[in-house]
């Protein structure tokens, strides 16, 4: 073995490969590879790891003044040349080379050629000079950059970016379906391969024109015809299928995302269509809304832990405390009228007051004590105090509840005096006040001040009259 490597033909091989590499790099544009040679390029990802490790070890030994085994250097240099050449072959598969690939190719070539020079120097015993050491330092840096660029070509430019909580672009109020929704999905799931640097299947998915242009397999999208669109077809293939996109190992699209793309294509794949132009019954409306609405649970994610045993201790046969959802510390509380009612059971929940987001006290003989407790439930969004004896003075205590969205106060003795309390509840969406002392005029004023509030004042008298009038079904004869 040792003898073989010391023979002259090793020198010739290294020289020959170096010349071939230079030739490839220079005449890049004129070279058309035969299939079998192109296939050799596929071995690039396998062999590339050898020169990285071997060159680094050799350079490390050289820089620390230790002898570099001749065999190590020969194998390192040969593998560097083979890697660069196979890399060049692989690069030919991409029609247009992007920035990343361009730099990767030239730096890779430089690494291989510098390694050859190193071999030449060591042959002459010059590798311990300043030139040799300088060369080794430059090689270490170049190997690092080449490897990094290569990694970005295969895994995407963002691959090594710090794991920020990957925040997708927010969808605006009235999104353009293509720009704000469709492109967002494509950017997230497709563009890491179908970009200017990789262009898998000769398809770019970075803008509308390129999408319509299509790729190797033909029409990526046919506006109005999802069944003929390659994109939609591939998304629907079973995961095991070779043709399924995204390929194995990449995050597949969710059902909703596939449906969005499908409906968008079916509607003509417009790049100007806006959300509010969609008809109400169009499935896209619900799908896009689903993307726009933040997870309702996230706002309660910061609530401190509350133990099941606490809930059990505070609850009873007439007081149900439930988590809003599993893994949530937000609570929903329902209180039913026991044979002997005592305000203490309600007030005892004070230690979990901050956790309660829904509270149902309807039909209970509650008074000031309970309302003082309610005022402490700062995260309360949903409150039912209908059919209770509370009046204006008790209701006033709710003024401190800033998150209230839903309030049932029907069949209570509140009057117009409570209107200012409602006015100050900026987030209030639904208010139920029928069978109270509140006048219609006061409600109209409230409604005018807070147009997003829906005030329910009972059934429309006209409709009620229709119902009271009795049966009007005409039996056909």
């Amino acid at each position, binding site marked *: 073995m040792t003898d073989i490597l010391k023979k002259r033909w090793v020198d010739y091989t290294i020289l020959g490969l170096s010349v071939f590499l230079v030739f490839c790099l220079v005449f890049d544009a004129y070279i058309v590879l035969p299939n079998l040679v192109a296939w050799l390029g596929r071995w690039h990802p396998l062999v590339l790891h050898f020169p990285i490790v071997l060159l680094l070890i050799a350079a490390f030994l050289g820089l620390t003044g230790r002898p570099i085994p001749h065999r190590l250097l020969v194998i390192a240099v040969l593998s560097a040349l083979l890697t660069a050449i196979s890399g060049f072959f692989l690069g030919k598969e991409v029609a247009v080379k992007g920035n990343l690939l361009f730099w990767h190719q030239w730096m890779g070539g430089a690494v291989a050629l510098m390694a050859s020079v190193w071999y030449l120097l060591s042959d002459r015993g010059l590798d311990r000079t300043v030139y040799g050491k300088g060369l080794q330092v430059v090689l270490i840096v170049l190997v690092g950059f080449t490897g990094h660029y290569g990694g970005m070509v295969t895994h995407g430019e963002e691959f090594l970016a710090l794991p920020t909580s990957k925040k997708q672009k927010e969808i605006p109020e009235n999104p353009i379906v293509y720009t704000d929704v469709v492109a967002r999905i494509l950017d997230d799931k497709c563009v890491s391969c179908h970009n200017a640097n990789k262009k898998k299947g000769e398809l770019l998915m970075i803008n509308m024109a390129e999408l319509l242009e299509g790729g190797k397999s033909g029409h990526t999208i046919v506006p109005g015809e999802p069944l003929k669109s390659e994109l939609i077809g591939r998304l629907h293939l079973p995961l095991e299928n070779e043709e399924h996109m995204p390929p194995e190992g990449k995050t597949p699209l969710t059902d909703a995302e596939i449906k969005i793309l499908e409906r968008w294509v079916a509607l003509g794949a417009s790049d100007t269509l806006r959300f509010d132009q969609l008809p109400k019954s169009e499935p896209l409306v619900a799908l896009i809304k689903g993307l726009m609405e933040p997870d309702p649970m996230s706002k309660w994610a910061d609530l401190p832990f509350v133990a099941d045993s606490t809930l059990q201790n505070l609850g009873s046969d007439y007081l149900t405390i*439930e988590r809003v959802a599993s893994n949530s510390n937000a609570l929903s509380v329902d209180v039913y009228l026991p044979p002997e009612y005592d305000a203490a059971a309600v007030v005892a929940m004070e230690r979990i007051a901050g956790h309660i987001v829904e509270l149902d006290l309807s039909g209970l003989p509650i008074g000031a004590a309970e309302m003082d407790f309610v005022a402490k439930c700062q995260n309360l969004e949903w409150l039912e105090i209908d059919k209770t004896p509370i009046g204006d003075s008790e209701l006033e205590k709710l003024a401190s509840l800033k998150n209230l969205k839903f309030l049932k106060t029907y069949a209570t003795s509140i009057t117009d005096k409570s209107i200012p309390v409602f006015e100050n509840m900026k987030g209030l969406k639904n208010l139920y006040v029928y069978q109270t002392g509140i006048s219609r005029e006061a409600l109209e004023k409230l409604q005018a001040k807070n147009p997003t509030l829906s005030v329910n004042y009972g*059934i429309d008298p006209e409709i009620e009259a229709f*119902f009271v009038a009795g049966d009007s079904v005409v039996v056909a004869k």
Partner: protein
Amino acid sequence: MKEDENQKENPLKGNRRHFFSQLSVGIGSLALGSLLIPDLFKGGNAQPLTQPLGIPHFAPKAKRVIYLFQAGAPSQFESFDYKPTLRKRMGEDLPESIRNGQRLTGMTAGQDKFPLMPAATNFKQYGDSGTWISDYFPHIAKIADDITVVRSMHTEAINHDPAITFFQTGSQISGRPSMGSWMSYGLGSENKNLPSFVVLTSRGKGNSQGLYSKLWSSGFLDSKHQGVLLRSGKDPVLYLNDPDGISRSDKRHLLNEVSQLNKLHHVETGDDEIESRIAQYEMAYRMQMSVPDVMDISKEPESIVKLYGEDCQVPGTYAANALQARRLAENGVRFIQLYHQGWDQHGNLPNAMAGQAKDVDQASAALVMDLKQRGMLEDTLVVWGGEFGRTNYCQGKFDPADFGRDHHPRAFSIWMAGGGIKPGLNYGKTDEFGYNVIENPVHVNDFHATLMHAMGLDHEQLTYKYQGRRFRLTDVAGNVVKDLLA
């Protein structure tokens, strides 16, 4: 060997040597297992494989369901699916290109002609949503903007019993838990003094099909999830009230003593079923107070009585049950199932259907409006519909004044309101003959998945292992119809 004999006698009698030899096999098989199943030892830090019971999987839109089941299958052609083509082509034979080999029941398979029959009544559009509703349902027409009509329902069964069993349990063959039982199993009870699944039945004058308690059975789930049939009249729950001569304090005494004995037994055996039995006794005791209170509609004001119609004062009518349903919902019952029988119009449809509609129209609409004014439509889901549809052709003699329609599983209409469902939506379409679904089909499994989603349950996660495999309400099918969700 002696060791083995010892072991057989009592598993705790193994010795140290035995323990280690068993241990090595155990560790070996664990290692092998971890190679075969990479996630074997993965902690539950991501999505747990099984969700805890009694809590929604995610924040629900609806906390309870009122299901107004129209047993016998009301005709979509006289209710919500307006097909003017049937009038234009009245009496013509149903084109084979439309029927396309669809199987028929024995009742019309022998007919040599299938003459198209138009609606026995007129249709108009109502509300901002422009929902087509027939003249048989003038009150439901008033709430057109509160309801969502799904005209693209389809099912697999063509006869009543398998179809209604399929609708209630997700399987045509009886024995699976009813959807109310699944909800009770998945979400637990909101009010511990009432059952979480309650059934109320009523019957119209039309042709009826049987209702059986298997429709609200808990199947293989714990029997506490079974639907409780509340009867009309003095004894809503059979055997709930104390017999003559037994006072409530006597009963309390009895329960205390029985519970003492049961607790002793529990200490001895450690069987958790005993604890749940004690709890059931206690709940029945509380129900003696809560049930009569909930069922007593005498306290309802006159305006409410008028809203539901005078019928609601007659126990056992649909109107009375609808009002009852609201009271049960107010008291935290999760799933309230009404059945109204008499919708099986194989003949005499114009008359019988008008009668059936009269039974349910006002009370159904009143229920939705009443829930709305109480803010309960926000978290209560109301569903109205039957087990399948009816044919667009006439059964028997062709006579527009007196005809029938046969069973039709390929397309029918239901409506839903409240509880996280979009209001005022017209969803799904049938062809111009009303025979096949041509847009947005909703299978019964999809319907179940959607209902569970509204209640905060993932239909694929709520499972019960029985006879060696896990069961779901939707078994191996079902997709949530997101379009319907608000």
